């Protein structure tokens, strides 16, 4: 596993939506494959099951289902990869994983559907008082 991740590089941009889609699935599969070792590293057996973690990862990806620009998908994949690497390399601690993927979903990361059709004012209002 470890050598595989070490050799990860920033891939060239996806040429088409089809390619970006393929990469997304590859990324998801890689994340799923790492779940047992992640459970092991962070000692998550008694708080979560592998299937729950899988659906949590899937939910993170589905959150951006509306994105159609391959460049944006590449960027999101890159960010996902970064996060993935941090998790697998034990750069995080147990409470990070529990906080982000097990309990308080949406507390740390915004898992709600994107606010479609609301004004910028309201978006800023939800974010903070100073925007």
């Amino acid at each position, binding site marked *: 596993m470890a050598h595989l991740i070490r050799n990860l590089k920033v891939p060239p941009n996806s040429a088409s939506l089809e390619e970006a889609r393929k990469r997304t699935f590859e990324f998801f599969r890689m994340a799923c494959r790492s779940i047992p070792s992640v459970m092991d590293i962070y000692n998550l057996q008694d708080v979560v099951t592998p299937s729950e973690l899988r659906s949590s990862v899937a939910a993170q990806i589905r959150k951006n289902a509306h994105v159609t620009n391959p460049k944006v998908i590449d960027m999101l994949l890159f960010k996902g990869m970064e996060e993935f690497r941090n998790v697998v390399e034990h750069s995080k601690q147990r409470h990070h994983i529990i906080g982000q993927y097990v309990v308080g979903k949406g507390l740390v990361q915004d898992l709600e559907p994107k606010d479609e059709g609301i*004004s910028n*004012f*309201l978006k800023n*209002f939800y974010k903070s*008082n100073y925007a």
Partner: protein
Amino acid sequence: MGLGLLASRTLRSARLRTTNFHHLRRSIVSTTELQNAEAAQAQAEPSPADLPPRTPLAGARVHFPNPDDAIEVFVDGYPVKVPKGMTVLQACEIAGIDIPRFCYHSRLSIAGNCRMCLVEVEKSPKPVASCAMPALPGMKIKTDTPLAKKAREGVMEFLLMNHPLDCPICDQGGECDLQDQSMAFGSDRGRFTEVKRSVVDKNLGPLVKTVMTRCIQCTRCVRFATEVAGVQDLGMLGRGSGEEIGTYVEKLMTSELSGNVIDICPVGALTSKPFAFKARNWELKGTESIDVSDAVGSNIRIDSRGPEVMRILPRLNEDINEEWISDKTRFFYDGLKRQRLNDPMIRGPDGRFKAVSWRDALAVVAEVINQVKPSEIVGVAGKLSDAESMMALKDFLNRMGSNNVWCEGNGPQPNADLRSGYIMNTSIGGLEKADVFLLVGTQPRVEAAMVNARIRKTVRATQAKVGYVGPAADFNYDHQHLGTGPQALAEIAEGRHPFCSILMNAKNPCIIVGAGVFERPDKDAIFSIVETIAEKAKAVRPDWNGLNVLLLNAAQAASLDLGLVPESDKSIESAKFVYLMGADDVNLDKIPDDAFVVYQGHHGDQSVYRANVILPASAFSEKEGIYVNTEGCAQTTIPAVPTVGDARDDWKIIRALSEISGVRLPYDTLSGIRSRIKTVAPNILQIEEREPAAFSYSVKPEIRQEISNTTFEAAVENFYMTDAITRASKIMAQCSALLRKK
């Protein structure tokens, strides 16, 4: 070798010689030329007349009541014209020269006992105390001569003789006149070798901390208490080195202005008790803002450190609060830290509040407001609301189809049509021109302490007469109690009362009606009687408008300017949806049990107990908002500290709620909402300018109401606790327990 080097060499050798000489004599004076003041004076030749023009100190202005009385004096050779009767110190200020002083204060009587302001006057044998010496024509004042410097150095030495060396633990450190002036004018050593005297500290109550050993007996606090505050609590005891400031008997200082002695004390003898050992003044960030605890809108400076308000100080505004503020204004800031609402909350079926996200809270409110009938929606703005949020609330509820929106304290049927009918037309500064006051149902001492200070100033300066109609009350100036109910007014209006002749003979009569009258059912009748009196006494003329209303709350004037008037006065009894925007003094029993109550505000105060949803808002210290004071002067607060928790500005909450409810308000920014206000009440945007009302009582419809026999009631029960912030304040609670007049 340059010329400069040569010169410095000779200078150095000369200094060497003098230092040796001093070593032998061990003198106190650090500046060598002061050793021989007379000789040095002979050396100093008069400076030529072509001096650059100087700017008066701190914006000091000369007002010539009579142009013939102008006299010319010379300050350090520079000629200045001053009116007759001005003191030497004032002349120097106009000439742009700051004279060091401790006891002199421009708003207090002259004591002349600190001797720090000594200057040299030509042909005078001794240095003169400039604060007490009137300027005479052709006087040649010298402020910078060796003689004056030596005199100051000597005075400093005497003052420091008995002053403790505790600056590191003194709260005044960093803003202490004695510290600054001893750096500027003092010597670097003293000759005093005995034991310093110590003085027992006095207990002046929960606001003023005393360390009486630090006192330099300038008597500013004594003069402030007797002259401005009008209480004879403080005084001077003993003589010579036994001299002490204190209350004659064990007694607290019971003035509503007592906090100002902290500001006028030039040393650390009187400091703020709540602020003691909390911060140093150089750590604090000052924000120039406006006070909201009463309708006066005193100018204040909020000193904050990080997210915390550390203290509140007055800011000079000659038209409103001069340089004083009331104790409530100065000390209620600790309420900003207690009982704050920091998350949106929804009351669950078990009656307990649960913190939710803004999305959920707004969604719930929007769902309910869309289910009720428009006529069953009611909105109440609170005492501390700014103009922007009241505008947003009115626009929002109007778009929902309801017109039942008002501001608390304005009574059931407020008169918002004639602006002169709800503001102080004379203006606060203008009260000084009045010669007879008639106070109707108002106790300015507790309702608006700064207005009361102005009336007291007038009464003290011109022996103006004060008549008072209302319940027995405490005044700090001479007054005649004319009666307790509206009957006394009727007697004055019919000319049967002895006070009537005083009022008729007055040149500038001033009638002040308290806003407590707004709550009375017969308020229209009372106002019509007051207008009759004003007409008879010729109180409303083109050059003088002496018919005033003294409002109680910071939001009142702006709410009436914006037309926050309910459609029907019984709307709250039939309401199904009640939106309380910081309104904590509405009668909660009147709200039906099945009504849905939304409370938007910054403190968990009375209305929270009834609320179904809580939307946290920011307090006045955290937002920018316009407030119109009782004389109609619009001023704006400036955010000093960040908001608490997940709170939002008031108008933003209403704007966000309007979008979710499907009636999106058309403004997204503060400037957007202000341009909306401009179409409703353009006077609100005249920041820091007083917009007088065009008076036209003649257009008022005739009143067919009868006055009732019920006596006037006190509008403010407890001076120290009037709104959500002051009720949350611990200091205010201590004050009400100890100082409240029963």
